[in-house]
């Protein structure tokens, strides 16, 4: 009988993911990417949602927030607004981002803050013990679909592309080097970057195993795909099944939230300014009929 000893993270917190969990690959890629980019830990912020991925914040020595279910996108937007100097990375799950939090997705795209959103997409709700998620396969058997999933699978790449996201990519947790490269490209991209990461759930998902993915994934950058071609990206987004593309689907430069909002653009990072009462008499004159 073998005893699995849980690994200890950089913070000293014990890592409680299942042995073989796809999250280990994402954690390794994340750490390598930040190290390679040479960003000091106090300049990095990670916001996680609720789910297995949501334990990530305990395992990394950077600034972190573990927020409530589905709300990573508004949080990373506001943190960037409050301190434009920070490298802000959101980590969400597929239940987190594509179910309860999907309503925020178009809006972070519309605002285009210079942040990165990585979705740990394992096609099930893991931490609540294996219910169907929006990216469960049609026919997939889960705790809430005992006769097979009857709902259509949500297509994250097509959804995000359709709303004009400025950096759209897909990674695979089983290919750490490739994922590391994607995270670095995403962080370097000026504007909102989105990476959907295919992540096997070794406990609750019998379909999307490492082997299943390895037999199917291929790298877009090895096929001559042009990431500036939105229509080509959109047609790649609908490729799923026998062949699954990973890599950068689409990349374009657009003005960011920090360019478009004057108080952020004109000032040093707002979080560094000292508290100072602002003058209000001018407002009383202009708006409220100040009379002697």
């Amino acid at each position, binding site marked *: 009988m073998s005893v699995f000893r849980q690994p200890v993270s950089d*913070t*000293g*917190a014990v890592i409680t993911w299942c042995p073989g969990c796809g999250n280990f690959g994402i954690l390794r890629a994340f750490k390598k990417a930040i190290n390679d980019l040479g960003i*000091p*830990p*106090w*300049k990095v*912020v990670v916001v996680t949602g*609720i789910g297995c991925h949501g*334990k990530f*914040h*305990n395992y990394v*020595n*950077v*600034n*972190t*927030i*573990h*927020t*409530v279910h589905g*709300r990573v*996108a*508004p*949080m*990373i*937007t*506001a*943190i960037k*607004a*409050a*301190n434009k100097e*920070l490298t802000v990375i959101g980590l969400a799950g597929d239940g987190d981002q594509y179910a309860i939090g999907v*309503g*925020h997705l178009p*809006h972070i795209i519309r*605002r285009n803050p210079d942040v990165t959103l990585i979705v740990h997409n394992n096609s099930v709700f893991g931490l609540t013990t294996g219910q169907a998620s929006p990216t469960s396969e049609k026919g997939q058997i889960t705790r809430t679909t005992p006769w097979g999933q009857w709902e259509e699978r949500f297509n994250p790449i097509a959804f995000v592309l359709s709303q004009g996201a400025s950096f759209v990519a897909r990674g695979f947790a089983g290919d750490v080097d490739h994922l590391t490269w994607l995270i670095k490209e995403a962080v370097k991209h000026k504007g909102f970057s989105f990476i959907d990461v295919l992540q096997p759930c070794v406990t609750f998902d019998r379909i999307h195993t490492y082997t299943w993915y390895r037999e199917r994934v291929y790298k877009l950058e090895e096929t001559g795909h042009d990431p500036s071609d939105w229509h080509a990206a959109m047609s790649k987004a609908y490729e799923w099944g026998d062949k699954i593309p990973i890599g950068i689907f689409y990349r374009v430069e657009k003005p960011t939230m920090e360019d478009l909002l*004057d*108080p952020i653009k004109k*000032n040093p*990072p*707002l*979080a*560094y*300014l*000292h*508290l*100072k*009462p*602002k*003058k*209000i*008499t001018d*407002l*009383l004159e202009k*708006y*409220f*009929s*100040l*009379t*002697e």
Partner: protein
Amino acid sequence: MYMGYYAVGVSEYPSLIRGGHTAYWVRAGTDKIYELEDHTDIVVAFDEATFQRHGWEIHDDSIAVYDPQVVKNVPENIKKAPIPFRKLLRENGLKPITMNMMAVGAVSALLGLPLDIVLKSVEYQFRGKERVIEENKKSCMIGYEYMSSQPLSIEPPRLDEPRPWGKRIMITGNEAIAVGFVKGDLRMYVAYPMTPASPLLHFMVRMIKEKDIVTIQAESEIAAAQMALAACWTGIRAATGTSGGGFALMNETLSEAGMFEAPLIIVVAMRPGPSTGMATHSAQEDLLYSIFAGHGEFPRIVVAPADQEDAYYRAVELLNLAWKWRVPGIILEDKHLAESIRTVPAFREDLVLEKGALLYKEEAEEKIRNGWKYLPYQVTESGVSPWVPTGTEGALNKSDSSEHDERGIVSERPHIANMMYKKRMRKEKYILEDLEKNYEVIRTYGHPVEEADAVILTWGSAAWASLEAKKHLDKEGLKLGIVQIIYLWPFPENRFNEVMGKVSGKPVFTVEYNLRGQLGLLAKMMTGFTVTDHIGKIDGRPFRGRQLAQEIISRLKR
């Protein structure tokens, strides 16, 4: 207001954009006016519905200003000052939308107000729009001249000579809170439109260009609260604002702010419920909800400003308090306060901002260089942990919505849970001490409670009708004492006992715009004090002074 009169303006409108019946009341005088009265001296009727809906406000000396071609059914008992609005507009080539300024001119003539001052206020109203100013001034003048030239058989009311009273402004509760936010160095305001909190968002949007405040219209109240919370966490003052339904969506985030110990500010502008209720009307149904909203136990501060003037000072104060104690704060206002306009002394500039336990980046970095080990949730006697802006060299801010240790790393171990839970909760005791010692948590008006024949226990805008009722009851020889709770949570139980302990066996009524008497329930829960009876009003329209006075008299007779 320009002439030195004290004025209030109250609007009532349905939840629709074009058409329908809307009404606006102005009450002016030389003495401080708290609330509207149920006797309207001059009624300008643009539609037939005016007299159908507001006929009860007319008295024998009321004057009707109306276009006889449009409004046919004018009550017999009202004195008449007709003016052919449509004909005058047509003859002078004026747009129909300027009709209200023609009415302003007509009413000003009736009241004998000087034309130049009236035109000055028209200019101010449309400032920055030259053509609009010209057209509206013209319309106003035509109305003024028409009414001045009519031989009137009636004697219009005259205002006494105004008393000079220094620098003053006219402002709504929402706007006063917004100006407080500017003064308090708020750097981000995020909200989703919802009546009656939307005007606050509208004003804050202007502050993007004027005061360097990042204002964002979020995709939902959930997003708004999350963004404001994340901004606070990063180290800047941030707030959101909404009404009941939106506040319900923010509850999960409020609880998260409790766990993060983040000074998130939420403005809750109340309207009648349940559910969508009456979207454009006023209520005070969310007192207990604001205090207890959010799952789990955590300290918060809830303040209900007394009026528009108070709203400015309390907004700045709540920002300070929330930052001092690292707790979320709620400003509770009703639509009546949020949207009614009032003459108040010009707001003071000389307010002090407190950063509380936050260390500026440089201070923190120097401490860290000297060996300080930063723990974002360090356990202290007061429960408040020193904290730093995110991005401070050598310091990591880690916040977890799960129970966590002093580093902000998740922990479910019993001794950690005990330590951290109690650290958060003991702030409540110290906040209460601070509030009762250093802040005006309760206001008393009218006759001292120990001499009063009846005492009103109230909060928010319900105090205004109570103050008007006192004027009526004085004439009846009945002494009314009024107690208004400003800081509702932590409930100022010691000050409350001190004040209410002086009541000498006389009846105590809660006056609130709800049916349960929520302040009475709260007082009972926190102190055991039992009020005699509750006087509530839940139709969305605030009490008029005399209405409330009559209600109090009838309760005293029971």
